[in-house]
């Protein structure tokens, strides 16, 4: 159990997907203007990452040992179709939830965090449970980064940012600062 928690925490803060590994940058830059949207995007990400982890484990266990060269192709196809199916199911079952998360789902599919998770999980040889904790940790880490960025960006709207820095330059520099701050977690727990 301790190991699992460690995997989760590691993916969440120590090796934060966005701030340390540069995964999921598109939503991080694009959907971080409002805290509410950032939260929803984060929730959708946690969900899709969990689904991804499950399917990657399935592929790794039952398919890829026989055809290793199909790794990338099968990952992307399976994930994309699974998300598609989930999207349809959510739309049927809970239209309210779909309105909250739905628009983000197709965006997420082509997001490097998803494929990145599948590849990392494979490279590190995580089992089913480890993979799930990894996925949840990664998702929470993404959410954390997104929400922090969004709350800081909301504040910058009330301030007089120099003309030159408006837009993405400021976002990148805030991201750099956040990334610097998250370096404080480097090596966390590794000594014990």
């Amino acid at each position, binding site marked *: 159990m301790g190991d699992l928690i460690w995997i989760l925490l590691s993916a969440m803060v120590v090796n934060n997907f966005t701030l340390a590994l*540069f995964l999921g*940058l598109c939503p991080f*830059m694009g959907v971080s203007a409002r805290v509410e949207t950032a939260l929803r995007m984060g929730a959708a990400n946690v969900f899709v990452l969990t689904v991804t982890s499950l399917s990657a484990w399935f592929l790794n266990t039952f398919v890829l040992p026989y055809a290793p060269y199909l790794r*990338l192709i099968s990952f992307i196809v399976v994930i994309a179709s699974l998300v598609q199916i989930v999207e349809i199911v959510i739309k049927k079952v809970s239209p309210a939830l779909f309105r909250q998360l739905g628009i983000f789902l197709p965006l997420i599919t082509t997001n490097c965090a998803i*494929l990145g998770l599948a590849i990392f999980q494979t490279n590190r040889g995580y089992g089913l449970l480890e993979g799930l904790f990894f996925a949840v940790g990664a998702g929470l880490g993404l959410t954390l980064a997104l929400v922090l960025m969004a709350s800081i960006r909301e504040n910058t709207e009330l301030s007089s940012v120099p003309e030159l820095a408006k837009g*993405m*330059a400021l976002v990148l520099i805030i991201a*750099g600062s956040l990334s610097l701050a998250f370096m404080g977690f480097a090596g966390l727990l590794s000594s014990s």
Partner: protein
Amino acid sequence: MRQTTPQMDFLRGIWRENPVLIQMLGLCPALAVTNTVANSIAMGVATFFVLLGSSLLVSTFKRWVPHEVRISTYVLIIATFVTIADMLLEAVVPTVHKALGAFVGLIVVNCMILSRQEAFASKQPIGRSLLDAAGTGFGFILALLMMGAVREVLGNGTFLGISLFGPNFEPWVIMILPPGGFLTLGLWLLVLSWIQRRRAESAKVADWPAGVAQRRAA
């Protein structure tokens, strides 16, 4: 769509609509693997290859791809080329392949490639698609080089592994760490927007009647 010349198709992607610096696409590799110039070049070339290959295929088969499944088809085509690139890199430059790690595989989800397919290759003839892909690809390599150069020179005191300042140079380790990636791109964007503003200002001065410009200069 506005009529464009083949020359424009090619040049557009390199600077004016640079995928990384202007359109903010493909940021993930642009930040993750640009800590050395060699990695930047390898990643740039691999992406260039995938982009060119997929544009060729997509443009060739555009008539036979049903509209509903086009995105999945593009992704499939891209994934195939990425697999090839992955294997090639592993065979030719194993050390670089190892340094790039998972990020070679992640070329699949580089939104820049997908956006070129959707926006251009699926609608244009093969030749123009190839020009466009080459332009965008070069633009991507250029952006990666700009990132990689700054980060390697400051972060290691070297360029392509060649020492520039002698042994006494104190490397700025941060530049090859994650924060350095964000900060370098942020800095480049600041520089570019400064250049743009300078240019806009000088253009404004040129538009003014001669007297005004002279008085301003005086």
